[in-house]
């Protein structure tokens, strides 16, 4: 049985990617199972999806804690650290990244693969620069790098089950398959900055009632930002629209009345840029 875990952000299509993989595996004659785990159901929030592929009926109804393959739809999620948790020592790590796979952090033994699924998606008009829909491009890369499913079955699954732009999504899958790069595994002692160890949770200590003392004033709520707003003060008319519309109260006005973005709270939703009458706000990709 092959166990594949997807890590993405709400809106990127990680759940659909896992389901499409299951559909493709079924067309290949396999018995698939796929399901997502949602924390908060919100655009931009981390999402995990699980896909099992076997020759016979899957007899496990649990999340995947020892994946053969980890697929990361947004490289920022690698920084969070938990994406590689439990990845098998001879497993595969596939990341949507412009970087060469050899530059990816990974535990020893893991085959590293990367593909610039964002550029492929945008080339085919899938999603927006703010939120590219990268799932079909990365599935093509997964098919080529792992053989988990055939590219033919994947294209067929896309044709049948992707309601919008099936031709563009098929092309993205083909491009992803052609563009994926694989680096040889690192040897023990040379692995960098990544561990597949399963974190041991500390002993459980609960308060008297299910109450969390929490306020976004004291908690950095911007962990999932992929784009940041940059304000051109020369064009800013101090109309305060960005301050009014920011859903996270992450914009304050300084003494002169110019907006200042608190990046520890800004989730990069882009509403300020969309609302700004003189177009003084640009959304810039995070490094």
């Amino acid at each position, binding site marked *: 049985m092959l166990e594949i875990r997807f890590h993405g952000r709400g809106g990127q299509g990680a759940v659909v990617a896992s389901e499409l993989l299951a559909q493709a595996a079924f067309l290949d004659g396999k018995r*698939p199972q796929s*399901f997502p785990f949602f924390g908060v159901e919100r655009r931009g929030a981390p999402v995990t999806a699980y896909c099992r592929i076997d020759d016979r009926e899957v007899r496990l*109804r649990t999340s995947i804690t020892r994946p053969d393959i980890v697929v990361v739809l947004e490289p920022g999620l690698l920084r969070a650290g938990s994406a590689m948790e439990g990845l098998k020592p001879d497993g595969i790590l596939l990341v949507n990244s412009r970087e060469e796979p050899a530059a990816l952090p990974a535990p020893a033994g893991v085959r590293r693969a990367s593909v610039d699924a964002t550029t492929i998606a945008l080339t085919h008009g899938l999603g927006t620069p703010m939120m590219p829909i990268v799932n079909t491009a990365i599935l093509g890369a997964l098919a080529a790098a792992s053989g988990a499913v055939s590219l033919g079955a994947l294209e067929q699954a896309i044709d049948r089950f992707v309601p919008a732009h099936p031709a563009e999504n098929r092309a993205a899958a083909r491009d992803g398959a052609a563009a994926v790069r694989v680096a040889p595994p690192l040897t023990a002692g040379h692995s960098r900055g990544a561990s597949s160890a399963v974190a041991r949770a*500390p002993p*459980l200590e609960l308060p008297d009632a299910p109450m969390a003392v929490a306020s976004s004033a004291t908690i950095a709520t911007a962990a999932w930002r992929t784009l940041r707003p940059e304000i051109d003060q020369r064009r800013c008319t101090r109309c305060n629209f960005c301050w009014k519309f920011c859903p996270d109260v992450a914009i304050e006005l300084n003494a002169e009345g110019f907006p200042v973005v608190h990046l520890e709270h800004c989730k990069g939703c882009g509403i300020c840029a969309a609302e700004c009458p003189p177009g003084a706000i640009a959304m810039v990709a995070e490094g």
Partner: protein
Amino acid sequence: MTQIVMSGNSAQSYAALLARVQVIAAYPITPQTTIVEKLAEFVANGRLAAQYLQVESEHSALQSVVSASALGARTYTATSSQGLLLMHEVLHWASGLRVPVVMGVVNRAVAPPWSIGADHADTIAQRDTGWIQFYAESNQEVLDTVLEAYRIAEDPAVRLPAMVTEDAFYLSHTVEPVDVPSAETVDAFLPAREVRAILVPGVPARLGSFTGPIEYVGFRRDVARAMERVLPTLAAVEEDYARRTGRDHGGPLPTYRTEDADAVLLTMGTATTTARAVIDALREEGHRVGLAKLRVFRPFPVEAVRALAASVDRIGVLDRSFTFGPTGAAAMEVRSALYDASPRPLVSDFVAGIGGRDITPEAITRMFALLEGPEPPELTWIDLAAPEASADG
């Protein structure tokens, strides 16, 4: 018949489509929403000729289908967790009025603290409302059971509402292959509802109005007697379904590898699948263990549990909820059913998987270790701490 890779929620929607339901009431709640979304799609694109009512609450959703059902329509609605709790009053109305409403419920934890994870507390809390309750293990079982539920609910001998439940995410959002019977097969199995309208437009009547104690006792006893006829009706309906589709889900308490078992684990819902794999592994090591799946919780299959108990020494019960009694709800029912059994097997309750916690193969293995151990505890909370830590300890 075609095989489609679909979610448990889609299995609910396809079953309602195949049953040719006439009235659907929809109110969204995670993780149920995609059931009524799919039905909206079927209605909008003309595949299903149903009245689709968007209502302002779950209370109204159930009231709408109760009323439509009293007028003779075949109806469907679905909910989960807090939504089901809000329906509680109307659940009693449905059974008391003897309307054959069928409802999908996605089993989700009850707040607080807020959770969208799998947990049976929502439907277990409705066990006393006079509804038939089915718990499904797979998406296939969801689809087949919804169709069977209509036949049973509408049977003149029964005329009771039924809920078909599925675990949040482990079925609701899990896609896997499902055999979808043809419309012809289902039409032959489940013809249009024989019109047994309780209310008739143009004929003024009151439904469920004030009743003196003598009549009241009689009506309650009628519901109780109807409940007694559910399991015999299920047996006949399943036999017919199996004849037409080749699938038989095995009555209210199907068993797995119990023939020479000393210890049997009784499960509900998706934990059953994982438990099958664990039992195969333990059998390889020489353990005489087996499984019984509690598929119907109301009416509780007392006779089937007694028959199982006649051949085993120890019964473990996996409760995916806790209701603040001496043990979990299923264990209490099992113990009650076995009070007069002789010899009487030991019953050990395991509370596991609540709030969406994974029920892992390791957790089920630990349950069997406790069950086969020198002194199986009356009640054990599994996985109270982190999974890795508890696997070591």
